[in-house]
């Protein structure tokens, strides 16, 4: 039996990508992982049941994270789509786009510690709305940059054609622009959702730990040395993006350049 080096390499890369998911799932199902056992012992789903029944806060964190990520995704995708149109056709497009790049200059956590003062003064620190606004500082410019490429000459001509044929701007937007942008809107929604879903530093500083998203929960369990609940929270963080990636792989693959 002969092995082609190409297939051995593919098998190694596949194993490297799958192992973390398997380890997290096994740890979340386990109740002990004593050295030098390679596979965690006493595997059962009871931990998952307990996590949602007992007062662990995991279920609550899941709902908060879902709500936060969905709100960030909806607001930033919608506003970024509208804002990007204005920027794309503006004579100072390059300068305005530079503005949109500014939030990416700073690490989110450094941005958060510097902005914390203003959030405290506005009574937004430690609140859901405060964390939502803070995350929009990252997600909204991202969405604006994302859609700038969509507003090309062809889109402008479509819009002008509808107007020439008697349609209003609202009609052109609803019947031509939005259907044409549908795949991009979907991708942007998922990407903004993931930005909020993955966020830790900014949420921990602005939220003061009072907005317990799943990432905050993971860090809390890690510092408490509760690796089994930490792994369970990690699984909850990783599985929805895997599902989203699987659904959107082909579209995302075509868009990222």
């Amino acid at each position: 039996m002969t092995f082609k080096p190409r297939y051995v390499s593919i098998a190694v890369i596949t194993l490297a990508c799958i192992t973390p998911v398997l380890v997290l799932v096994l740890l979340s199902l386990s109740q002990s992982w004593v050295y030098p056992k390679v596979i965690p012992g006493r595997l059962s789903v009871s931990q998952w049941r307990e996590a949602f029944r007992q007062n662990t806060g995991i279920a609550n964190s899941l709902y908060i994270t879902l709500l936060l990520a969905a709100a960030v995704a909806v607001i930033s995708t919608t506003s970024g789509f509208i804002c990007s149109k204005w920027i794309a056709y503006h004579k100072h497009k390059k300068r305005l786009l530079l503005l949109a790049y500014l939030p990416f200059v700073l690490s989110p956590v450094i941005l958060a510690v510097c902005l914390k003062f203003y959030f405290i003064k506005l009574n937004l620190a430690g609140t859901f709305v405060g964390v939502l606004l803070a995350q929009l500082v990252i997600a909204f410019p991202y969405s604006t940059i994302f859609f700038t490429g969509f507003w090309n000459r062809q889109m402008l001509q479509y819009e002008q054609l509808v107007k020439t044929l008697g349609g209003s701007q609202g009609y052109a937007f609803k019947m031509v622009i939005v259907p044409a942008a549908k795949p991009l809107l979907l991708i942007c929604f998922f990407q903004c959702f993931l930005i909020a879903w993955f966020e830790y530093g900014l949420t921990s500083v602005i939220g003061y730990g009072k907005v317990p998203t799943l990432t905050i929960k993971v860090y809390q369990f890690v510092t408490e040395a509760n690796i089994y609940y930490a792994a369970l929270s990690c699984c909850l963080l990783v599985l929805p993006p895997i599902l989203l990636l699987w659904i959107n792989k082909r579209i995302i693959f075509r868009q990222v350049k």
Partner: protein
Amino acid sequence: MDKRWKIASIIGLGWFAALPLVLSIGYALLYSLGVIGALNKGFTLLHWQKLFTESAVFGSFAFSAYIAVVTIVVAVALSLTIALQYHRHLQRGFFSSVIFLPMAFPALVSAFFFFHALSKSGLLSRLAYKAGIVNSIEAFADLVNDQWGIGIIAAHLFICFPFFVMLFVNRIKSERVGAYLSLAKSLGATHWQALKKVAIPLLIKKTLPNILLYFIFMFGSYEIPLLLGRSSPEMVSVLAVRKLQKFNLYHIPQGYAVAVLYTVFTLGLLIIILRSQKLDYDL
């Protein structure tokens, strides 16, 4: 109606993009210069002088740059190899789905996994024990919280290499690298020469803005070094946050000075990147 949308757009962009940066840097700069802040007594350069005499700050910047450079060099080399060798396998099938799994990992989860994979009692140590490579838990090398940042690099590498694979595979298609390779070979180049002289320089040149932007992102990384790093040297974000959230209030101005220094560095780098390239970069 159209004018109202335009005004709303500029306000939105200013409010969520420019204003937070101006406000945060303004506040940090004024605090570091002693103009505002609970224990500050007026304008002073003392906090900046202290910062420049403290070797930890320069060590922190150097360590962050080291982590970012090593991670990106390894990630680019690995991704280029995968993209050039397996770009057909990456179009469809099981492999094309599996290779992008790490993109579903938040930095914190990647750090958590690598802690349990590379620590002395981790998965790799257990496998080494079973294979007879080490005979006790202490005999296994320090791969997390170590001075070379091996754990930090591994965790970053895991989450960033699929991004580069995706980038290179798309560029291979859009730049018609296959056609250039065939042309080079038809002119007498070997496969390796065609890769070295044509494909790799072309792909690196076309993706350089993305690579440099990833450098900025990695330079300010927080979650991974927080879990896998050690107290000295620290990465810049960890150092700044530690100084700002300490109970000793006298360290806060220095923390803000680190934040200002970091912003100036990354802003300068961003301007260089954007000036040297077209600004129609697509996220």
